[in-house]
Structure formats: structure tokens, C-alpha cells
């Protein structure tokens, strides 16, 4: 019976179910501001959802397409700088600027992909780290964009278009929900489309994929563009949210890993993995450093590190596998 409502075969059924659950989750998130009033928790939720979106963006390239990029901070930083520069220098509001940031981020992802997609395995991973690092160093030394001093986004006046809010966090909450929702829905659409199939095929077996007329390089480039673009938008939002950007905080290699980590621990190449991963990891990281970090003992790092190890070992298929509902068919790899 359920079958007839949801679709005639298992794939369609699963996809419709996912969409419905997605909408429910979205609705649930939208109600959050009614429940959570304190600014600190709101902050935490905003970050978590932002990272869910970023991790989803990473997941498109790293998860579905299997290109483990450890240089996503580059696209993040570029998105942040583009929108911030547009705003600070030209007065273009970040609501527009973030799309420009996304565009440039996507372009750079293509630029990086062009040479790097010829590399395989660890060579690719290290090359992305290096590209990210080069970007970081260049930005650090580029005086026009503030160099190491970064850019301060001054608070001018309350404005929705310019994403300036004095103390309230609620608009931010909705903005990141929209962002993560966008990333999620893009992933959902792609998962069921030709591209999604191409990517997963490329990830599993390039030779076989090619023999089935999957154009490997363009597929990877498409994944990179979408992933870079979404990451860039995320960077732009983050810049405006924090109100200050400098290469150290938004372009470092650590950030690249932090973008990838929720997707990997949550469940790589799955629709829900990034969300679940961020929901656990980001609050844990923030809370432990807030409450344990102030002793300066390194205890928070120990706990955080140990947890990553434990999750990776105990749940190699990702935390998502704990949630039976969206589990891939038994024993899927």
C-alpha cells in the first residue's frame, strides 16, 4: 500500500521517503528559534547547521564522487573574501555577494580540478592540501584584501539585505537553515539524477564507468563546481556571521578537515551523513572547548581526538548507520 503512494519500486520509495523526512526535519529546524532562546545555544545551532551544509557540499565531491578533497577551505575562503570585498569596498550587499562568492568558489574548484583530477588516490588528496595551502599563503600576503590583518566588517545598521543584525541570531538561524536545506536538496536531486549515478560509478570503478559512457573527467568537474560553489556560499555566510575574516581563521588546512569530517563520520556519500555528523561533532567540539578548554590542559583535544578515532573505528560506514530508517540495503559499501 505504502508502495503505491511512494512509488512503484524501492528506489523511488526510498527517495520519496527521504524527501518527506527531509521536509519534516526542515520544519523542525524552523521551529527551533521558538524553543531555543539563549544566544549561546543559538550560536551553536547556527554553526552546526552551517557545517551540515558545508559538509554536504564537500560530500558531493568527496562522498558521491569519491574525490577526497582536503583543500575545501580554499573555496570557503574565496567565497568569504569575494562577498566581503564586494560589501566593504563596493557596498554590494552580501545577500547578492554570497552568490558571487559561490560562483567564484565554483570557478576555483574547476581551476583546481583541471590539473588535480589527473591524480589518483593519495596523490590527489595531498595535492588538494597543497593547493589549499598555496591559496592560504597567497591570501596572507595579498595586501589588497587586507593580508594577514584580515577584513573587519563594521556594524553599520540593522539590515536584512546586508545581513547586519545587532544582537539577534534568529535571522542567521533561518539563513543557515536555508543554506543547508539548499545543499541537501541539491544533493537529493543529484542523487537521483544521471550525474549522481555517474559520480557514484566513478567512485566505485572508473574503468567500468567509462565503458558505460560515463564521461569521467567532466563528471568530476561538475561535482567540483557544485561542491566549490556551495562551499563558497557557506564561506560568505560565515564571514558575514563572524564579522571579521582573516586567512588564518578561514583558509587554514584545519578548516578543510573540519569541513570534511562531519561528512565522513556521519556517513560519506549519503544524504543524511553530513547532517548527522555535524549534529554530533560540532556541538561536541564547541562544548568541549568551551567547558574543558578554558583549563588550557588539552583535555578537550584529547576527548575530541579520541572520539573521532572511536567513531571512525566503530562506525566506519558512518553514524548514519545507527539510524535504521535511512540505512542503505544490508551491508552496503
Amino acid at each position, binding site marked *: 500500500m505504502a508502495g503505491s503512494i511512494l512509488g512503484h519500486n524501492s528506489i523511488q520509495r526510498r527517495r520519496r521517503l527521504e524527501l518527506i523526512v527531509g521536509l519534516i526535519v526542515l520544519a523542525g529546524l524552523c521551529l527551533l528559534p521558538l524553543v531555543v532562546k539563549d544566544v549561546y545555544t543559538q550560536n551553536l545551532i547556527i554553526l552546526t547547521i552551517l557545517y551540515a551544509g558545508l559538509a554536504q557540499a564537500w560530500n558531493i565531491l568527496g562522498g558521491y564522487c569519491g574525490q577526497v578533497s582536503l583543500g575545501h577551505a580554499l573555496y570557503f575562503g574565496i567565497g568569504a573574501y569575494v562577498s566581503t570585498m564586494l560589501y566593504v569596498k563596493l557596498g554590494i550587499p552580501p545577500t547578492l555577494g554570497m552568490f558571487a562568492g559561490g560562483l567564484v568558489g565554483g570557478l576555483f574548484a574547476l581551476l583546481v580540478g583541471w590539473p588535480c583530477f589527473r*591524480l589518483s588516490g593519495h596523490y590527489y588528496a595531498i595535492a588538494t592540501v597543497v593547493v589549499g*595551502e598555496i591559496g592560504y599563503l597567497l591570501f596572507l600576503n595579498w595586501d589588497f584584501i587586507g593580508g594577514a590583518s584580515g577584513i573587519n566588517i563594521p556594524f553599520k545598521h540593522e539590515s536584512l539585505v546586508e545581513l547586519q543584525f545587532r544582537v539577534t541570531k534568529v535571522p542567521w538561524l533561518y539563513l543557515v537553515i536555508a543554506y543547508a536545506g539548499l545543499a541537501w536538496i541539491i544533493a537529493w536531486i543529484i542523487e537521483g539524477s544521471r550525474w549522481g549515478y555517474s559520480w557514484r560509478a566513478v567512485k566505485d570503478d572508473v574503468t567500468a564507468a567509462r565503458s558505460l559512457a560515463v564521461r569521467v573527467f567532466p563528471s568530476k568537474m561538475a561535482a567540483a563546481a557544485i561542491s566549490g560553489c556551495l562551499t563558497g556560499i557557506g564561506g560568505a555566510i560565515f564571514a558575514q556571521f563572524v564579522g571579521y575574516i582573516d586567512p588564518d581563521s578561514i583558509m587554514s588546512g584545519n578548516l578543510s578537515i573540519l569541513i570534511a569530517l562531519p561528512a565522513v563520520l556521519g556517513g560519506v556519500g549519503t544524504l543524511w551523513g553530513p547532517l548527522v555528523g555535524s549534529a554530533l561533532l560540532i556541538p561536541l567540539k564547541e562544548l568541549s572547548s568551551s567547558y574543558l578548554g578554558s583549563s588550557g590542559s*588539552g583535555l578537550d583535544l584529547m576527548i575530541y*581526538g579520541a572520539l573521532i578515532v572511536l567513531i571512525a573505528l566503530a562506525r566506519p560506514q558512518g553514524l548514519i548507520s545507527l539510524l535504521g530508517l535511512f540505512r542503505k540495503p544490508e551491508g552496503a559499501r
Partner: protein
Amino acid sequence: MTAELILQTLLSGLLMGLIYALVAAGLSLIFGLMDVVNFAHGELLMVAMFATLVLHNLLGLDPLLLLPIVAVLLFGVGMAIYRLLIARALSVTFNTGMVQIFVTFGLAIFIRGAAQFFFGGEFRSINNSWLANKTVALAGIYIPLPQLAASVVCLLAFALLLAISKTEFGRALEATREDREAVGLIGIDRDRIFAIGWGMGAAAVGVAGVMLANFYYISPQVGANFALIAYVTVALGGFGSLGGALIAGIVIGEVEALSALVLEPSLKQVGMFAIYLAVLMFRPRGLFGRL
């Protein structure tokens, strides 16, 4: 720019390059020969440096004398890491590659936290060793002794590792990487082989740590300064090639030194990374990579 300046720069590039190679040697073994990305490599280096410091303060022995002790210690650490974590990471059937990456990444954070916990964030140095701050002059060129010693040790370490990789054990290690299941069928205990491999890799890092402690400061973060360069060195040399790592280390040291001389020094790493990327464009498997 005088000839002397250039010569001096080339020399420090060479010495530094050999140090990079020494740091990369262990990584090359673990990364290249066993195909495991070890993101905790820099942290192992840091552990070795702290071990040197602690033993130096405790026993009053010169770091050079501590070399075997730290090497053995790190050998044990490497074996333990393999047995406790990596063996498990390898046995998961599910996206093994990523699990490895993030297990070692988590381990790195953990070790860094632990170092902070036990030693605090203070920068420490060993000043009263035999070699500390000593320099000899040769025809107007200055050769710092600690770096010179490290370079010699580097060459020795590579010779030793190369010799080991040519032994039957070396081939067993390679075979185990090729097919972890199948080696059991011919009576090879893969966990033992890999544990020893990790031990050797970590011991090599231990040696690097001792030599570095002679002239570099020690702090919980110090590993990060060398780790990225070590990855680039191994990838530039090509996975699976020890000789490649040695040559790549020298290339990177020279490129760094020269670009610091002619470019803005803050951009010297860009020069070194750019060379790496350029090489990869023409040789996607590094200079001498087989994998």
C-alpha cells in the same frame, strides 16, 4: 648577491633538505610502503622530541647518546599504534581509505592534547647538548654542526631503511601491502609484519626527533611545522620509493632556501609547493613513484 651568499644558501638548503628527508623517511615507509596515510606523523615527531627532552633532563645524557633509546621507544609507540588502532582500521570492510585518514587524524589531535596536558604549551629547547649552537667555518661558509650531524644521520637512516627494504622482510612488507589476506596463506603474519613496519617508521621519526631537538624548539605544535612538508616530500618522491623521498627532500630544501632568498620569504613555501604541483603535472606519480 655574492657567491658566498649563494653557496651558503645552497648549503643550508641541502642541510635542511636532508632533515626534511629524514623526517619524511618514516612517513615514506608507512605511507609509501604500507599505503596508510598517517596524519599523526608530525605528532610522532613531536613525541620523539619531547622524549628526547625528558630523557635529557632526567638522565643528563646528550641527545646523541639518547638516539638509540628514543628510536627503540618510538619503535614501541609505532607498534602500539598499529596494534591498537591501525590494525582495526585496516580490518574494516567499509571505506577503509577514509577510516584510515580520520583515525590517524583523530590520533594526531589526541596526541597533541596529551602533550599539552603533560607539558603545557611552553616552548622548550635543549641548549647544553654537545652540538647545540656550534658552527664550523669552512672557506667562509658556515656549517652548523647539529644540522650537519642530522644530515649524516639522515643518510645513514636511508641506507639502513633501503637495506632493510631489500631484505626478505622488505619483500614481505611489500607483499603484505599488495594483498593483506593472501599473505596469511603462505604463513606470513600480516599484523606482525605491519606492526614491525610501523615500528620502523616510527623509529625513523624518533631519530629525526632526536636530531631536531638538538637545534629546534619543542612544543606540542611543533609537528605541524614539519608534517605538511613531509607529506609533500613523500608524494614528490613518489609513494613506495625511499630513494625518491631522499631526493625530494633535498629538492624541497633547496627550493625553499632559494625562494626565501629571491622571493619574499613569507612566500617561500609557495615556491616549494608550486614546484611540487608542477612535477605532479608531468609525473602524476611523483619523481620515482611506483604506486
